[in-house]
């Protein structure tokens, strides 16, 4: 039966390019790059890499910002859920979640930079009346050498992501009852949650947390905007060396990409070690019988942190919106000297063209990912296949492997096999990154669907296909659309895959925006970032609105 082969086929489609790409990167790292006449294996590239004086700093930065952003995001989310789940403030976060999630990383980073830079909105609002500054202070806030602003930029985007994953996990952890029992035994809210619910929830969100870690360590666009440059993070340096005019630098870039891969593996290992330490400490804490975890203070703190993360993104978008209409805007005016439609008029033709391409690519890759995901899940259902823990890891591999480490290798392979880089190839590449998110988003509701519905439909004479099309999928319309929206937003945000696999010929809103970021025309950046955000946000609005429209007469489907 063809459906039975679906999971294997999907894994091959996802992992084939990743593994091939890694090989294509490892070869030049060890000195093999035939086009410049290097065919002798060797470790010269690593020697050159070690001689780079920025290496310790870059490695340190990657580790610290990656681990730091992950720990901070996780702590904020866990405390927020521990203290506030089920309350009205929490419901507000829930509602803000989809918009926050869909804001592309680059747009959020720009927003943050426009807010907190010495000439940013915050200082403008306080100057000169409170600060006495008539010129921006010479303070190193954005792109600080310690990577604090980079970490902040990552945290504001990872908090919504982890919160979403946690919400999904809560349902399966029987959280409400477990917490009630623990509170009835005398624990305050955070203590009850942390002791009774956290271990189960964490087991569910562990892989997403590791994805956040790997992503934070290797992200390029956010690090370009908010990260330091003396030296930059290792991932940024890899891209710099890859772009160096001296072709021999490709070897060093490949060596650095290999090191980056090793660093990610090491950080993941370190994290797992940390998990054990935390588990041990946690067991000791539970055994000790302590029933307080700072109740009100923890609650206030977590709300403040999560609230500022959300507000930062939203305020950042606000500043971007203002900049997109700004004429000249002198310091320290809190408002532009003049407002103009000129920026939009000027950039609209380019925006419109890129919009069309982006929508086409994202819609197609999301559709393909959905087909694969439904195929896998349905095969799982019909043939009682189970994705074991190992399978889950494989699914996450494209998200865990640093893009800078395998995409250049994929590009080389594609060319060797004579595959044209074009829209088709870009769609295929996007599916690799879109599928895991679609699958994860759809998997739980798909599996949670009451299989007795299928038994009943079968007993009424319906074959498997009719059950899928006439019962299961319509009932799962809302999660299907949510998965599609997630997939679409992920696809819209892809930078490196579009650039490298498209051979630079495929221009999406994101590649255009990041290319502009190299410039620094704030008005142009603002226009593109707003468009990018709107494009990612629209499907979420549809995902919320469509089921309400379609099922307006079906109360049984609207509770969600």
């Amino acid at each position: 039966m063809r459906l039975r082969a679906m999971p294997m086929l999907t894994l091959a489609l996802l992992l084939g390019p990743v593994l091939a790409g890694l090989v294509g990167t490892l070869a030049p790292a060890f000195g093999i790059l035939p086009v410049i006449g290097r065919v002798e294996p060797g470790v010269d590239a690593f020697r050159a890499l070690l001689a780079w004086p920025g290496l310790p700093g870059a490695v340190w930065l990657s580790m610290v910002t990656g681990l730091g952003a992950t720990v901070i995001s996780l702590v904020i989310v866990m405390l927020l859920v521990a203290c506030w789940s089920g309350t009205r403030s929490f419901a507000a976060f829930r509602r803000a979640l989809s918009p926050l999630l869909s804001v592309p990383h680059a747009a959020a980073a720009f927003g943050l930079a426009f807010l907190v830079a010495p000439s940013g909105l915050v200082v403008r609002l306080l100057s000169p009346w409170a600060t006495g500054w008539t010129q921006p202070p010479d303070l190193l806030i954005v792109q600080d050498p310690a990577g604090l602003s980079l970490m902040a930029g990552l945290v504001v985007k990872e908090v919504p992501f982890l919160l979403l994953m946690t919400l999904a996990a809560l349902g399966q952890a029987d959280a409400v009852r477990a917490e009630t029992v623990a509170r009835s035994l005398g624990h305050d809210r955070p203590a009850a949650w942390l002791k009774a619910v956290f271990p189960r929830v964490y087991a569910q969100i562990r892989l997403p947390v590791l994805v956040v870690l790997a992503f934070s360590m290797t992200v390029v666009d956010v690090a370009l905007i908010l990260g330091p440059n003396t030296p930059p993070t290792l991932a940024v340096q890899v891209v710099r060396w890859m772009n160096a005019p001296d072709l021999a630098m490709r070897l060093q870039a490949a060596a650095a990409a290999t090191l980056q891969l090793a660093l990610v593996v090491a950080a993941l290992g370190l994290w797992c070690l940390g998990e054990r330490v935390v588990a041990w400490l946690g067991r000791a804490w539970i055994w000790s019988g302590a029933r307080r975890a700072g109740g009100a203070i923890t609650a206030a703190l977590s709300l403040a942190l999560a609230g500022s993360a959300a507000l930062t993104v939203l305020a950042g978008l606000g500043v971007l919106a203002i900049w997109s209409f700004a004429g000249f805007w002198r310091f320290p005016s809190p408002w532009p000297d003049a407002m103009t439609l000129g920026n939009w008029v000027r950039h609209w033709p380019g925006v419109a063209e890129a919009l069309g391409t982006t929508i086409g690519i994202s819609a197609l890759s999301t559709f393909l990912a959905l087909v694969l995901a439904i195929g896998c899940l349905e095969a799982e259902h019909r043939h009682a296949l189970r994705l074991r823990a190992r399978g889950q890891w494989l699914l996450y591999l494209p998200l865990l492997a640093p893009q800078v480490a395998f995409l250049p290798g994929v590009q080389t392979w594609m060319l060797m096999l004579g595959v044209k880089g074009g829209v088709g190839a870009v769609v295929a590449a996007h599916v690799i990154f879109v599928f895991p998110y679609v699958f994860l988003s759809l998997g739980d509701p798909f599996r949670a669907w009451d299989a007795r519905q299928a038994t009943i439909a079968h007993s009424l004479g319906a074959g498997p296909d009719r059950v899928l099309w006439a019962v299961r999928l319509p009932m799962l319309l809302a999660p299907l659309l949510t998965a599609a929206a997630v997939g679409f937003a992920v696809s819209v945000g892809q930078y490196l895959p579009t650039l490298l696999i498209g051979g630079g010929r495929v221009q999406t809103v994101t590649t255009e925006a990041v290319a502009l970021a190299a410039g620094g025309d704030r008005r142009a950046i603002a226009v593109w970032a707003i468009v990018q955000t709107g494009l990612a946000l629209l499907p979420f609005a549809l995902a919320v609105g469509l089921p309400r429209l379609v099922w307006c007469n079906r109360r049984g489907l609207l509770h969600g």
Partner: protein
Amino acid sequence: MDEPGLILQDLRVTLSGKPMLRLSAHVAPGQVVSVMGPSGAGKSTLLGAVMGTLSPPFAVSGRILLDGRDLAALPVEARQIGILFQDPLLFPHLSVGSNLAFGLPRALRGAARRAAVEKALADVGLNGFASRDPATLSGGQKLRVALMRTLLAAPCALLLDEPFSSLDADRRAQIRSLVFERARAAGLPVLMVTHDPADAQAAGGLVIKLD
């Protein structure tokens, strides 16, 4: 060999080789056989085996015959066995009428199809409910719709999986007699799993105890 009714001949179910259930029974048309036993005794496993919804690591041996047909090789949808669960499980995205029409033979078209649905509703006192959203029905109403949905598909046997346990005491008796009455009228062999002795008593047929 084509004795009417549902016959379980030395039915055995194992889970990863471990025996779960062993049973022989004959349910004649119009008769209700009750299966009782504590949780974990294999009641749902039995229903799964008869429906054909068990998949590895479950293994089923022995024979299941329905009106002389061996069901072993047939998928769920070809077995012609109706089932009522504890929850009515009406399809929430379809109207009451569409739920009823879901299992109607395709040969029934147009006005005849609509008439069959209307008649089924009238039979259980739900005239004019065809366009209703199932979510707006009471528990008893839902169960009645579920029953008629099952019967409209013209099954050759009926399985009941604790179908009355979600109802309060006085409604339970009423619905129970409705179900038995309808099944008997249609001449269906009925296999009922329950933990309520009152159900088994009302059924009046053979009681099999699992342990």
